[in-house]
């Protein structure tokens, strides 16, 4: 249960960074932290006590001794998508910095909430 709490806390920390921070790089870092929190939450749902990774690597392993493989496969997809999102976000940050010469979102007009 503490795994759920910790990963939700990680999601909240990331959202706090996205909402409060002024530096765009820190906002992108916040997005990545939200990503990690969601991944941990998924893996925690699939966890089974005293079970191993879902690979039949040695003889004698049975299906009853393994964790749920579906969340792991979903997280594998999600990590790649998260990487793509972060890369595109950072390239947009590079272009914004080229144009405005600042990373502070308060100085970039029309972007304030």
């Amino acid at each position, binding site marked *: 249960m503490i795994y759920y709490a910790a990963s939700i806390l990680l999601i909240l920390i990331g959202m706090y960074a996205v909402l409060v921070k002024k530096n765009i790089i820190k906002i992108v870092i916040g997005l990545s932290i939200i990503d990690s929190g969601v991944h941990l939450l998924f893996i925690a749902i699939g966890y089974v006590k005293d079970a191993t990774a879902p690979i039949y690597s040695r003889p004698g392993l049975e299906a009853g001794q393994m964790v749920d493989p579906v969340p792991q496969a979903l997280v594998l*997809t999600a990590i790649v*998508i998260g990487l793509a999102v972060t890369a595109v976000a950072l*390239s947009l940050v590079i272009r914004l910095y080229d144009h405005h010469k600042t990373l502070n979102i308060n100085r970039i007009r029309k972007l304030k909430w």
Partner: protein
Amino acid sequence: MRKVIAVLLLGIFGYYIFALFVNVPFGVRHDNVGQHYLEHSVQETGAVNIVTAIVVSHRGFDTLGEVTVLFLAATGLGAILYDKKGKKRRLQNASLIVKVASKLIYPLIILLGAYVFVHGHLTPGGGFQGGAIIATGVLLMFISYRRFETNHNALSWVESLAGMTFVTIGLAGLIWGTSFLQNILPLGTPNTLLSAGVIPLIYIAVGFKVGAELTALLDNMLKTIK
């Protein structure tokens, strides 16, 4: 003021998510499709790594979409960072120790990446992880040698050919089998390198594609450093 509002909002948000997940029992086996995969995947796909069996075989179409998203991200990044005058990386050369060491380690990192994506159906790992490892090897060379260049034409050829291989394997399943991405090769004995039919082929293609894409992406980003 804004921080207080943010903390309040996040507190409410977090409370409701946690209240949702309290009802999901932790650490016990849920009776769902995962059990079926664990019990039958080895007979059905021949891959002993069940996560690979799900990603490449059961959800192969989803993985094709994922590869497409990565391709679109790399293309979009190239378009956003495009500059008419050809740019060069302006990093400084690293120190002698770093240069010599990275020259020694670089082929080993490439080898490790290739090992990870070739053995995707046997060990933890696969195309995406192996491609990422290869890209980190190239990144090491980028940051230690200022003049180390990659051939962008070759990278896009590798990328396109790997993507086309993936689609071709899928179409072959449609022609000689019954559905897109169906396994048409013999499954072989589990736990050997030449097993699991088309899964290693697809993962090798994905490994090449991800490695080439991430390398081009890193090169594009490093070239914008002033």
